[in-house]
């Protein structure tokens, strides 16, 4: 009689333990949170067959590598209407500035930082007009003008490299192509204008009244 009780006890405890351990166990493919799922399922990420390359369109791009990020940005020089600058700027800037010569670039109003910080030559190289110039006098190509912006806007630059600032071109899949600073911000007037929203729900307005 005692033996049978023992057997029953041991059987019960086995079931109990089994129950305890199995109840917290998730089935395969089930996770506590979506973050666990992402972590687990991306471990064996093999790449995908979808490509966004076709959606980039006929934008000319160049590949850049910044830190651990390599991606495409639109080529800039061919988009600047009067590039190369040296077609007009045959002499260095200080030699061209005289009273009798016709004024140029009258339409550009610098509305970026204040006069103490910036003027035209903070970014434009007065001696070699086809290039930009860093604060320390290093030459910067127009195609990689983000190097000019990131001298001050370091936080935005970090976010842009990672993909939290700015916009992707085409699609989400590799290869990554991202807009560069000047594709959204006018460097002479970088802020976004306030304007009317693109649409407005007239139905809701009637309902509310």
């Amino acid at each position: 009689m005692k033996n049978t009780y023992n057997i029953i006890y041991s059987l019960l405890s086995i079931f109990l333990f089994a129950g305890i351990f199995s109840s917290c166990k998730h089935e395969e493919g089930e996770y506590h949170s979506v973050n666990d799922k992402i972590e687990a399922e991306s471990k064996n990420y093999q790449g995908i067959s979808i490509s966004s390359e076709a959606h980039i369109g006929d934008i000319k791009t160049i590949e850049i590598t910044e830190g651990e990020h390599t991606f495409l940005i639109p080529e800039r020089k061919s988009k600047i209407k009067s590039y190369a600058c040296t077609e007009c700027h045959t002499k260095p800037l200080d030699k061209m500035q005289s009273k009798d010569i016709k004024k140029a670039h009258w339409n550009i109003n610098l509305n970026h930082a204040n006069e103490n910080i910036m003027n035209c030559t903070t970014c434009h190289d007065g001696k070699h007009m086809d290039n930009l110039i860093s604060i320390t006098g290093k030459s910067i190509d127009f195609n990689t003008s983000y190097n000019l912006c990131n001298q001050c806007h370091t936080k935005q630059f970090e976010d842009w490299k990672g993909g939290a600032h700015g916009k992707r071109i085409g699609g989400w899949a590799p290869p990554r192509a991202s807009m560069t600073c000047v594709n959204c911000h006018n460097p002479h007037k970088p802020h976004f204008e306030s304007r009317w929203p693109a649409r407005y729900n007239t139905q809701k307005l009637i309902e509310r009244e």
Partner: protein
Amino acid sequence: MSNNEKKWFSLNLNSKHKVENAGSCGCGKTSGGCGGSSSHTPQNMHQISDADFDAAVEAEIENTQKKDGFEQVFEVKMDRRSAFKKLAASLAIGAGAVSTSCSVIAGDESKEKSQIDWEEQFKGNYKLMSDEEKSATVDRLVRSYQLRTGKTLSMSSKNVEKDVLFGYAFNISKCQGYMDCVSACVEENNQDRNSQMEYIRIHEMKDGKGFNFNEADDNYYHEVPAEGHFYMGTQCFHCDNPPCVDVCPVKATWREDDGLVVIDYDWCVGCRYCMAACPYDGRRFNWSKPEVPEAEVNKNQHYLGNRMRKKGVMEKCTFCVQRSRAGKNPACVEACPTGARIFGNLLDPNSTIRWVLENKKVFRLKEDLGTEPKFWYFMD
């Protein structure tokens, strides 16, 4: 009814097989109306004899015992009574189709139209369809649109890609309330222009009040950004544990393996349980017949996405399945002028969305509900 593998009823109008027990048009000709050289007389085709009907009922029972879409969904065994009912209902609905398709004067086109209508009426749940069935229904819908309007459209039934889980991030410090996303969404997804139903809502919130949806204004119309306000958008969050899917009584909505929560508009009965179950107000209902001017119809469609809906069914944001499965960004992401919207593959460790999740301070709405939305908010 000769093909038992089909999950819908078929009239076999264009089939060459000789149908023995069909209670419908069974002349077996490939084109032209019944009659002519056929041994049947067209007048007899409108009337089904009792014997034929009994035979059809028997065939029906046999058919459904071999698991069709209905049974797979509802798991009910078909008895003689319900088979009879079903057949009677089918005949009532299909009566128009049968009579037009069997009349001598009806052209090939109207016959094809009714054949399509018939097969569409009795197709299965998209979720349960095989790839061939999916492309068949898509082909039918494309052909039907062509017959009705004379215009072609491209509709995809592209399936889930392995190693893809879609996720979305929204930068609340970047959004300025320009509503370009909403505009692009309406156009891309063929949304009804009259009711102005929109998948995306942009909420204008007062600075210093936090996320206060009670005081938020989502129908503002003034220059934006307004002083002392910030903007945030909501839409379907494509929860990984979606409550809307659990409550659907007919399983017309489900989560695909790439994370998209989708609806089969042809399976939806319009009970709006899902609308009530969604804690984020992400679902929309077609109260009126959705109308899109013919010139504005986006012809790049997906069965689960922006194809034309009908009155009385649910719809919602699908992360533009017709675009995202092709590698494009959803229309809202593409339209956003401020770059506040980021979309990508959560399973790709090098994707931009993963960088945002790992490097920015992200949060989700009502995280404590355990719905696991795949839509994160963050700030600069």
